[in-house]
């Protein structure tokens, strides 16, 4: 099942004077089966997370985009500003989860294999060791109150790796325009509750078995070129 990120074109009713088209989004397929990440993450969670939660973000993001388009066309400044939180929440949800599915891989396909090459060296340079990085991400993820994400980021400007957290569905870029997400771990309760209940640290400890370091390395090498 190849990963497909499909962008579909949807045309709004043409206004009298000019023709506009709005790009909307669809739910990307997972590059693996729902049960392929077990026992780290249950198939039930993967199915709900993808088919319900991510799909809802996509649907509501499209709705917000249509409303935004209408408000922009009408010159409704108040309306445009009012839509910002819906755009950030739902758009962020779509962006973040699209990255997340890439960050995971079944063990049989290399999930959990530690990073080599440039990213491996960068991790040692900036954190001391892979173990130290994992420990930091786990502790920040566990300490996050409410919902949000914990990220391994590349700061393109400072050319350094960082661990950041964002609340709710705020994308990483809200913490700094030069930050590129290499890995994101969803610590919303829906990401682990059915399996791990309130014990978020167990979820964080186990997810490393299915983390796709290859993807993170590819992004790192591309963005630090």
């Amino acid at each position, binding site marked *: 099942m190849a990963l497909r990120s499909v962008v579909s074109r949807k045309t709004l009713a043409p206004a009298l004077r000019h023709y506009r088209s709005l790009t909307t989004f669809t739910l990307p397929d997972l590059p693996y089966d729902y049960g392929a990440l077990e026992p780290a993450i249950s198939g039930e969670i993967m199915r709900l997370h993808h088919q*319900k939660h991510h799909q809802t973000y996509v649907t509501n993001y499209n709705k917000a985009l249509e409303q935004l388009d209408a408000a922009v066309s009408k010159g409704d400044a108040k309306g445009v500003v009012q839509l910002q939180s819906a755009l950030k*929440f739902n758009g962020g949800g779509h962006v973040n989860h699209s990255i997340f599915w890439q960050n995971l891989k079944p063990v049989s396909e290399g999930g959990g294999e530690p990073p080599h090459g440039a990213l491996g060296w960068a991790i040692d340079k900036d954190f001391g060791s892979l173990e130290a990085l994992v420990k930091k991400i786990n502790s920040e993820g566990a300490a996050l109150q*409410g919902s949000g994400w914990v990220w391994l980021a590349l700061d393109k400007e400072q050319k350094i790796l960082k661990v950041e957290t964002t609340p709710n569905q705020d994308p990483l870029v809200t913490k700094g325009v030069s930050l590129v997400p290499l890995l994101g771990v969803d610590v919303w309760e829906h990401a682990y509750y059915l399996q791990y*209940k309130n014990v978020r640290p167990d979820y964080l400890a186990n997810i490393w078995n299915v983390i796709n370091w290859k993807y993170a390395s590819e992004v790192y090498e591309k963005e630090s070129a």
Partner: protein
Amino acid sequence: MSKRTVEIHWGKHHNEHVERLNKHLKTSAFYGHTLEEMVKATYNNGSPLVEFNDSSSVWSHDFFWESMQPNGGSMPKGGVLDQIKKDFGTFTNFKDEFTFAALSIFGPGWVWLYLKKNERKLAVAPTQNAISPLVWGDIPIIGLDMWEHAYYLDYKDDRSAYVNNFLDHLVSWHSVMVRMMRAEAFVNLGEPKIPVA
């Protein structure tokens, strides 16, 4: 609401907040405040201090458990129903507004029926994270936890089923009545009947 959910929600989540709050209290300047006072003080007008999250969560969860009863739901009677009709039009309108507000929250939060002190009327509002109407100086009457841990085991992502079940089978109108009675000591809900000479 399943036994499992209550066991984990109360025994783990709520308890964790209590333990963390007690840890803060060992060194906090707010030691000795009542819980309600502490919530209002540590909210600090929108720049919450470190004790706010846990104190408000403890207060809100206490309030939440007491907002429910076995075989709850159905309809309120008497003065409570009259006030709801006065401020929402119909009881169904109130339920619709409550549900709409609950589903409108982005991320973790709560939904409240509360009494607005200045306007002297009931209203529904959602809040983020651990915030409650206490921080606005208003009087909470019903609180429903909309964090995922409150419903995920029982309802997965189906939040509207959770809210409907709460309204139809769990909400304690008895608690509401008691809270309204207490609130009337602080807020004058009626007009006095002054006889014409």
